């Protein structure tokens, strides 16, 4: 029997202790009209070897590297993950432990998450970061709810260049709150149009994404200034964490809350989840933060140790007045991100991010040479939007047949950009890959 260690003798002995004849009678307190007496309609069990075959067949049908060259980012990025990280993440003391409510036997997880909090905060230039959220979208939704709590105002403004799926999540989260969500349009050069803020009052927060969904880098300093004139909180979100290995971080541009997706930091894409919601802010907002926090302390003998702290914000204590309902978060993903940041290091992350930037710039130039138009002239990081020459849909299909996914067509999300495509180049797409794409587009 898989994973069920009881022998007949074990069961007989235990049933005797409990004073019951058979396993079915254990449920005698359940009224007859509640009992299900049939068999579950599920497939018969597979052996481990049959399961291997079954899953391999499913996995094999999916379009992934190295057979497919996927030039898509849009919130999910292909990056190299060193073997050391996959190996370390398989240590079952990390994998099979629970939330560290008993800190004395969870110091491994607790120190590791404290380290993650520190490195994540440093990456985005803020003072403190939480222990993790589900993904960039929910981290952004929680940040806006936090701003509403802190300022006691009921209106937020969000850029239309925040990832479209993130904006849908915000709408869903805000629907029952009665708070207003305004959207800010965008300018010809592919960045947020903040002019409309002049007419808006009583704002709890203004949120932009940088690099934004078009890959363009926003002028955070200028936007921040306008937001603070309105006495609102400046929320900066991101989908590509690696960008801050190279670019000015949001903390240095006066962000109040920084939130985003950490999947790029050593976590595989896995068809969109699990990811890593990063949320960081200033110490002064500490008690309003949603999510778990690990803090440093000492034990009875004065040795350094770590504990979950400020738990009175959380659901298990504060219940309906909690800063969030989050319980299980994405701890193992935060651990992976910390391992990644530790492995790539301060010197390494800069070089890696620079390579992303340079490769994307190369593809941009080559595609322009092949007759494409780069849609927005703002600086970008590793994603950008192009307009293919006419007949785009046919080109895209032809490229798919050649096992090249030429970016994400934008028509679905921005109807005004019907022939435009969002392309992403990371360190995993070589010059050869890019040249092949350009050749196909040009022909």
């Amino acid at each position, binding site marked *: 029997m898989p994973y069920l260690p009881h022998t007949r003798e074990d069961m007989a002995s235990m049933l005797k202790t409990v004073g019951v004849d058979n396993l079915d009678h254990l449920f005698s307190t359940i009224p007859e009209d509640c009992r299900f007496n049939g068999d579950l309609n599920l497939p018969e069990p597979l052996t481990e070897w049959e399961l291997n075959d079954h899953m391999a067949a499913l996995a094999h049908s999916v379009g992934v590297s190295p057979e497919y060259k996927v030039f898509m980012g849009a919130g999910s990025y292909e990056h190299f993950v060193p073997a050391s990280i996959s190996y370390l993440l398989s240590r079952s003391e990390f994998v099979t432990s629970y939330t560290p409510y008993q800190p004395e036997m969870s110091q491994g997880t607790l120190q590791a998450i404290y380290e993650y909090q520190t490195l994540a905060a440093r990456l985005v230039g803020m003072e403190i970061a939480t222990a993790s959220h589900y993904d960039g979208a929910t981290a952004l939704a929680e940040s806006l709810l936090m701003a509403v709590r802190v300022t006691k105002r009921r209106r937020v403004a969000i850029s239309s260049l925040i990832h479209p799926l993130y904006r849908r999540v915000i709408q869903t989260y805000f629907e029952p709150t009665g708070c207003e969500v305004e959207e800010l349009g965008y300018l010809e050069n592919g960045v947020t149009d903040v002019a409309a803020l002049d007419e808006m009052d009583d704002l709890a927060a203004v949120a932009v994404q940088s690099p934004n969904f078009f890959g363009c880098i926003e002028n955070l300093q200028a936007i921040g200034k306008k937001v603070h004139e309105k006495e609102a909180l400046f929320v900066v979100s991101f989908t590509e964490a690696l960008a801050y290995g190279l670019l000015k971080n949001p903390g240095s541009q006066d962000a109040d809350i920084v939130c985003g997706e950490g999947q790029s930091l050593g976590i595989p894409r896995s068809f969109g989840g699990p990811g890593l919601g990063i949320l960081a802010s200033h110490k002064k907002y500490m*008690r309003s933060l949603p999510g778990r926090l690990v803090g440093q302390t000492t034990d009875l003998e004065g040795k350094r140790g770590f504990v979950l702290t400020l*738990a*009175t914000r959380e659901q298990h*204590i*504060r219940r309906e*007045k909690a800063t969030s309902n989050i319980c299980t978060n994405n701890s193992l993903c935060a651990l992976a991100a910390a391992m990644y940041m530790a492995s790539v290091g301060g010197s390494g992350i800069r070089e890696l991010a620079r390579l992303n930037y340079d490769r994307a710039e190369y593809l941009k130039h080559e595609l322009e040479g092949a007759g494409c138009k780069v849609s927005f002239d703002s600086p970008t990081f590793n994603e950008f939007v192009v307009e293919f020459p006419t007949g785009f849909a046919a080109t895209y299909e032809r490229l798919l047949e050649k096992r090249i996914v030429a970016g994400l067509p934008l028509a679905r999300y921005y109807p005004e950009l019907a022939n435009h495509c969002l392309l992403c180049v990371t360190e995993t797409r070589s010059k050869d890959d890019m040249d092949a794409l350009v050749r196909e587009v040009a022909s």
Partner: protein
Amino acid sequence: MVMKEISELNLPDDIRYANDHEWARLEGDKVRVGLDDYAQDQLGDIVFVELPQVGATFKQGEEFATVESVKAVCECYLPVGGKILAVNSALEESPELVNKSPYGDGWFVEVDPSDRSDMDTLMTSVACLEKLKGAD
């Protein structure tokens, strides 16, 4: 962490006590308010006290502060209604004052009472002790 027996509690005579363990002491025209020995003992080590703004007004029985220990939160209700004249800002750096000196340095707020007869609705230390004994 071991809690006190009822006989070990300190409930001074010159103070009045509310049902949920806030205390009020008349000091000339003002009323000083805090949390009594039973409450601080039950809560354990206090880690954070959230106090209202000076100038805010509350009715008798309205929530005006919260007190946090490591594992619990306690809402505090104003025993005597009125306007907040002063708050004990020392509690920001040293919340443990509520444990060490609940009737002295651990005070919460000074109130300008809107109705001094509110004091008469509160319990004496004898009545408070009786209530605690009855509840046990």
